[in-house]
């Protein structure tokens, strides 16, 4: 069944989009990530213009992170104060990101920049995760106890000034890295259409030493607002949010996420992380190939004088 997307201005198959949403939802439920980093490239592969894929991806992320954050709020694994500080940084980063987005679009370099960011970030995160999970898998096989980092251990981040206490996270840390992390994620969110969970979660765990059980809820909480802000700004400055497209993806996504979560419970942590790493790397490689392969058309047209 075909449907015409009002903003993307192309006809697409409803079932392809629902299936895409469900598949990504399944994976996001399984791995506890928002799935924006999969949705946006998939939309680009499906010939949705990158600018629309990014803005709509951000819109879709709100739905999955909102539903996830609700569960965490109920369980009390959500640090509102930490989330609020991350959010303050996020709004700043996101504003900057949208400004850069509009400039790149005018220069005709937006598509390239989005692809490059995806290749670099997904490649790095995927590679690190794969190495870490393979090591963990080896360690469990050989019977050795996994080496845990001590919570009292301090790094350079804990020597920065302007300290603040976060009770729910049992944390006393400078606000500078928290704001910085929020800003970085906000920037990526507006340029890549991702929530940033795949960077936020490891950063909170390894850099700020936030207890793992609080990390996902807090990250989801801040992602709701960053991506809502991103959606709003993209809608007003670039008019690139396609609600029809976003809704189809969300509808498939919320259903898929529940089954994914169930499937995820049957797998062990290291196995899950290794699978996710492979998935992330596969997306990165696919995008990288497109950068290097000679395009079928060297010339492209675009309207001049577009504000975004």
């Amino acid at each position: 069944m075909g449907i015409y997307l009002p903003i993307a201005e192309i006809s697409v198959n409803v079932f392809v989009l629902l299936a895409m949403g469900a598949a990504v939802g399944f994976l996001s439920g399984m791995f506890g990530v928002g799935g924006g980093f999969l949705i946006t490239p998939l939309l680009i592969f499906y010939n949705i213009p990158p600018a629309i894929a990014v803005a709509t991806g951000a819109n879709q992320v709100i739905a999955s992170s909102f539903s996830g954050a609700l569960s965490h709020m109920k369980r009390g694994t959500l640090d509102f104060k930490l989330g609020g500080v991350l959010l303050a940084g996020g709004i700043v980063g996101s504003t900057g990101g949208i400004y850069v987005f509009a400039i790149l679009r005018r220069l005709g370099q937006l598509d390239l920049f989005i692809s490059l960011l995806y290749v670099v970030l997904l490649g790095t995160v995927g590679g690190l995760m794969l190495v870490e999970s393979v090591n963990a898998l080896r360690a469990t096989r050989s019977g050795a106890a996994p080496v845990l980092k001590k919570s009292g251990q301090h790094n350079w981040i804990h020597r920065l000034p302007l300290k603040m206490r976060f009770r729910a996270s049992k944390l006393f840390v400078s606000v500078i890295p928290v704001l910085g992390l929020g800003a970085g994620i906000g920037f990526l969110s507006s340029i890549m259409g991702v929530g940033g969970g795949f960077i936020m979660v490891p950063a909170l765990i390894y850099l700020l030493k936030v207890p793992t059980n609080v990390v996902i809820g807090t990250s989801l909480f801040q992602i709701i607002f960053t991506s809502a802000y991103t959606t709003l700004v993209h809608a007003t400055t670039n008019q690139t949010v396609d609600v029809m497209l976003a809704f189809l993806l969300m509808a498939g996504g919320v259903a898929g996420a529940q089954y994914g979560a169930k499937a995820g419970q049957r797998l062990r942590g290291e196995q899950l992380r290794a699978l996710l790493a492979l998935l992330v790397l596969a997306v990165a490689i696919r995008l990288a190939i497109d950068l290097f392969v000679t395009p079928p058309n060297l010339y492209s047209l675009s309207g001049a004088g577009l504000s975004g």
Partner: protein
Amino acid sequence: MKGPGTFAAAIFLSLLAVVMPTKAQTPLTEGIQIGLSTDNVSITAGFSGADLTIFGSLENPDPLVARQGRYDVIVVLEGPAKPVVVRRKDRVLGVWVNLDSETFENVPVSYSVATTRPLQDITEPNSYKQLSLGASNLYMQPADAGDSPATIEEFTAALRERKAAAGLYSENVGGVQFLSQNLFRATVRLAPNVPVGTHKARAFLFKSGLFIKESSAQLEIRKSGFEQSIFRVAHDYSFLYGVFAISLAMITGWLGRLVFRRD
């Protein structure tokens, strides 16, 4: 079920031949008229391209010339003009990057031609150039006239090629047919992505390879339907639209949790 959505949508513009009152006095020169029965066309969201039929008539045709088939008609449907940037990808460190670009002012978004015979059989290339008739004779004004003519030529050719590939610049040889000595019908193609706005239909009359007269009419192409309302709201009330998109996402997320709750 698979494949691109094809809501069949066909539109027909029936044009009434505007027959001018024949004056009794002779000698008379030939003229051409096209008239549109409507001055606006609404296409629905599932529009997948269509043929637009335009009727017209010759005034005072010479019966002898008409019998020998020496009258030729070219009908052009030209979309609104907009500035266009043409970009060329080049390899930088192995990566394909948009490097050079050329901006052209006032490029017709679409340009569909229908003719009685192949263009080269109707008249000389020079007269096409003078009339600025045909996609390859459209003058594209570069924004930066300082660029080398070779570069401008290259980007102009690329612009035409891309437009033709998108179906926006098309040529329908044999698309104009004489139904009687002075009544003709022209079929021009509307691409699936035909731009909205004011289109100009023009008809050119040639007699034995000589340009005689031109006639034009305006046509408003609009999109209609639910999807178009969304598009309009997204552009006219973008802030409210953004708020709506966010609310929709939150409600979907919340409902999804209610329906598929697992904790």
